C-alpha cells in the first residue's frame, strides 16, 4: 500500500464519522450526508498532495464538505422535516425533558436554529474549532462568530424550556 493510500485510509477511518455528523446537521438528511461525506473524501483523495499539514486535515475536509454542500444546495434545496408534524408531543411535555426525551428536544431545537447560528455552533461543538478557526472557515470576523454562537446558545436555551433567565445576569453590581 502506498504512503498516500495509507494516509487516506487513516483520514477516512478517523474522520468520516465526524464529517458525517457535521454533514448531517448541515443538510438534515442521513442519505444526503452519506453522499456528501463520500464525495468529500473522493475529492480529498484527488487533492491529497495539496494537504501539507496533516494536523489541518479536519478543517480541510470540512471546507471541502461545505463546498460540496453548497453545490448540492445550488441544485436542490433539501428540506428539514417539519418538526411539528413529526413530533406529536404534548405541549406540557415539550418543556420537560424527562418526559419527552432530552436529546430529541435538543435536536429539534437545533434544527429550528437559523443556519447562520447553527453552523458556527456545529463547528465549535462538533468540530472543536476555535472562534478564529471558525471565522476563517466561514469567512466572517471572529467577533461575528462570537455573536453567533452566543445567540445560538441563547436561542436554544429559550426553545428548551425558557431557560433565558440563566442567560441573563442574576445581579449587577
Amino acid at each position, binding site marked *: 500500500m502506498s504512503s498516500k493510500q495509507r494516509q487516506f485510509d487513516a483520514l477516512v477511518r478517523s474522520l468520516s464519522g465526524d464529517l458525517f455528523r457535521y454533514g448531517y446537521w448541515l443538510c438534515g438528511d442521513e442519505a444526503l450526508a452519506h453522499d456528501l461525506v463520500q464525495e468529500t473524501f473522493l475529492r480529498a483523495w484527488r487533492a491529497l498532495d495539496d494537504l501539507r499539514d496533516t494536523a489541518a486535515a479536519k478543517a480541510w475536509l470540512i471546507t471541502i464538505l461545505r463546498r460540496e454542500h453548497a453545490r448540492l444546495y445550488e441544485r436542490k434545496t433539501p428540506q428539514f422535516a417539519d418538526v411539528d408534524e413529526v413530533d406529536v408531543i404534548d405541549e406540557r411535555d415539550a418543556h420537560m425533558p424527562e418526559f419527552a426525551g*432530552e436529546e430529541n428536544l435538543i435536536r429539534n431545537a*437545533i434544527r429550528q436554529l437559523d443556519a447562520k447560528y447553527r453552523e458556527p455552533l456545529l463547528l465549535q461543538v462538533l468540530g472543536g474549532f476555535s472562534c478564529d478557526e471558525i471565522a476563517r472557515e466561514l469567512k466572517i470576523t471572529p467577533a461575528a462568530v462570537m455573536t453567533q454562537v452566543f445567540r445560538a446558545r441563547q436561542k436554544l436555551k429559550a426553545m428548551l424550556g425558557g431557560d433565558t433567565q440563566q442567560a441573563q445576569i442574576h445581579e449587577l453590581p
Partner: protein
Amino acid sequence: MNCLEFRRELLIYPQSADADFVRHVRDCARCAEAQQRALAFEASLKSALAVPAPAQLAEAILLKQATEQQRARQRLHRGGALLALAAGVVFAFGIGMSLQAQPLAQVSVDHLEREAFVLSMTKPVPEANIRKAFASLGVHVGDLPAGISFVACCPVGRYSSVHLLMPQANGSVTVLYLTDDQHESRKDFVREGWLGRSVPLAHGTLVLLGHDASQFDQIENQWRTALQSAT
C-alpha cells in the same frame, strides 16, 4: 471580568480556560453555579449532535475510492488512443492547434474528466448563482453569457477556479476561469482528445475545453466582455 462579561463569555465558550474567566468562577459562587449548568447543557448539546454514523461508512468510502482509481487507470489507457485520434483530426483538418505540454492543459482536462457528470447538465442555472460563485473568489462579472448549465468553485490543480458549462449546438464547452493565476499568452491545445484554449483575461486565465472548437472565439469574446471589469 465582571458578572456580565462572564455570562457573555459563558454563552460563547463555556469551557474557556481564560485566566480572568477561571478567576471569576473561583470568586463568584453564583457564576460558578451558572457555569455548572452551562457545562451540563453543553454535554447534552454535544450528545444530541452526536448522531450515529452509518455502519461501514469508512469501508464504503474506501471501496468507492478504490473503484474510482481503477476507472482512472482505465481512462489513462484509453487516453493514448484518444490522443492519437485527436492528433489525426488536427492533422487532417489543419486546425493548427499545437500539442502543448503545459501543466495547465493537463490539470484542466483532469478536472473536467473527474467531474464528467457535469457534462450532461443542460438546465440553465440562475445568473445570481454564477455571480455568487465569482464573487466568492473575489471576481465581479459584467454581462454574463446565457444558458450556463453548471457553476461551481473548484480547485483545479493548484489554482482556484470557477467551473462552468455552456451547452452549444455542437456539444458543450467547459469553461474554467482560474482566478488567481494569469498565464503568459493565449494558446490553443489538444489534450486527451479534448480541444482547448487558454486565454489570459483580467487577473486570471480563461480555459475553454470541448470537442468542437468552432464556438471558442464567440465564447472567449463573451467572457472577455463579462470579465473586462473583473476585480
